């Protein structure tokens, strides 16, 4: 998807759709600020969705226990009245100032958004595929070593090795098998944490002799000019040996890398953004940092800290988005104004 039309106009761009990015939408929305969110993952939730969707969280105030995925579902429900716009599966690549004095955020998919305020809620950075820590492998990356499939045709007629034991590894091994010259699946153990159906298909192809399965670790690559010619494999307790190969696809899950946000002009110290704790603004006026990405004396990387940071951020953001208006502190419990924004006009409270 490429959006070549004129930039999207909004009040606030939030980079990162994890729990703190989502709660920022809520806090900003209460004070009439419209948001667009960008996230590299193809779904919302950040670490809660990617790392621990099924793990319990016990330290959300007044929520004795909820799973990562439940927390995100609830936050999504909370943001609903404010109709945030999501740009998922995209990486925020560039931040610049427009001649009109707005912040312009561009993504790797060509989405361009102009806003008065930018909120970095990017946690530990972008989730990107884990790269194999093999000496010299970077010479082959994107030439004959890949961590994702963009075009299946890249693998047509190739002697392909697929590494990994999860859904991505098995799905691609099975799907590329008909067009590759050969497919060898390499995994560290003869057990697979993938959908039973995929495991069944893979085992079927292996037993028919249409796919090879090796229980081993890849410890080296050999080749020239970006073209792999063989891999070094090592089986438990055995000696390393070479296996011819001309394309390698590795699926070891995702890892967090700071990425392009580091070159936005925001000041970083040890991969974290120092902020003013009265408003969580960065060195750039109108650019804020909330959640795990920021640092200040006493900082604790907790979801609940990020929620607090989002509320104070929204207050200062208001002065950039609505400079002509006075910030009016209100309680959601009693403000009919806030009730209207939240779509709760039918409440029965004393505000009526």
């Amino acid at each position, binding site marked *: 998807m490429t959006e070549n039309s004129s930039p999207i106009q909004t009040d606030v761009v939030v980079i990162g759709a994890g729990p703190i990015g989502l709660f920022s939408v809520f806090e900003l929305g209460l004070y009439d600020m419209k948001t667009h969110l960008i996230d590299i993952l193809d779904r919302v939730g950040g670490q809660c969705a990617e*790392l*621990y969707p099924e*793990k319990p969280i016990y330290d959300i105030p007044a929520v004795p226990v909820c799973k990562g995925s439940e927390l995100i579902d609830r936050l999504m429900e909370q943001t609903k009245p404010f109709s945030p716009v999501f740009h998922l599966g995209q990486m925020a690549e560039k931040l610049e100032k427009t001649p009109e004095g707005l912040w312009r955020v561009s993504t790797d998919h060509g989405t361009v958004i102009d806003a008065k305020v930018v909120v970095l809620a990017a946690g530990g950075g972008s989730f990107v595929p884990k790269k194999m820590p093999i000496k010299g492998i970077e010479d082959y990356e994107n030439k004959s070593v890949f961590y994702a499939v963009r075009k299946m045709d890249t693998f047509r007629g190739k002697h392909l090795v697929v590494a990994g034991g999860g859904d991505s590894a098995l799905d691609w091994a099975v799907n590329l098998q008909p067009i590759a010259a050969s497919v060898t699946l390499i995994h*560290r*153990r003869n057990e697979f944490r993938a959908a039973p159906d995929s495991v069944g298909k893979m085992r079927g192809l292996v037993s028919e002799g249409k796919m090879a399965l090796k229980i081993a*670790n890849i410890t080296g690559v050999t080749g020239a000019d970006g073209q792999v010619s063989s891999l070094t494999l090592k089986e*438990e307790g055995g000696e390393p040996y070479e296996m011819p190969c001309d394309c390698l696809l590795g699926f070891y*899950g995702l890892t967090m890398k700071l990425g392009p946000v580091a070159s936005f002009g925001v000041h970083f110290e040890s991969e974290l953004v120092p902020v003013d704790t009265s408003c969580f603004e960065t060195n750039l006026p109108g650019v804020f940092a909330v959640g795990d990405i920021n640092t200040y004396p006493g900082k604790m990387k907790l979801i609940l800290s990020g929620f607090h940071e989002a509320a104070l951020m929204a207050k200062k953001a208001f002065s950039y988005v609505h400079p002509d208006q006075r910030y009016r502190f209100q309680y959601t419990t009693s403000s009919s104004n806030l009730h209207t924004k939240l779509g709760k006009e039918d409440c029965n409270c004393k505000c009526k």
Partner: protein
Amino acid sequence: MRIFCTDLVGKVHELPATEEWSVMEIIREGGIPILAQCGGSCACATCHIYVKEPWKSRLPAPSEEEIGMLDGAFEVTEESRLACQVFYTKDLDGLEVTLAPGSM
């Protein structure tokens, strides 16, 4: 109470240990920049270490969850563990661990 941690370039660090802490926390507190991206919830495999005998068999066996999560680590062997799932006790004084590729 201490552990010995060998980093990725082979340097051995003697680190003070605290009872009930995970080995990941001890390494991090000792100033070695172990990745441990998920913060110790057995959800990312970026605190992969090797534990050799005689220490290996003195540790409680890994859970199914830890074994599964090791699929996301590199160069996994029979000595592989996730440091966030190995907890220090008094009888592990002198424990020797080695950081695995991808853990820094």
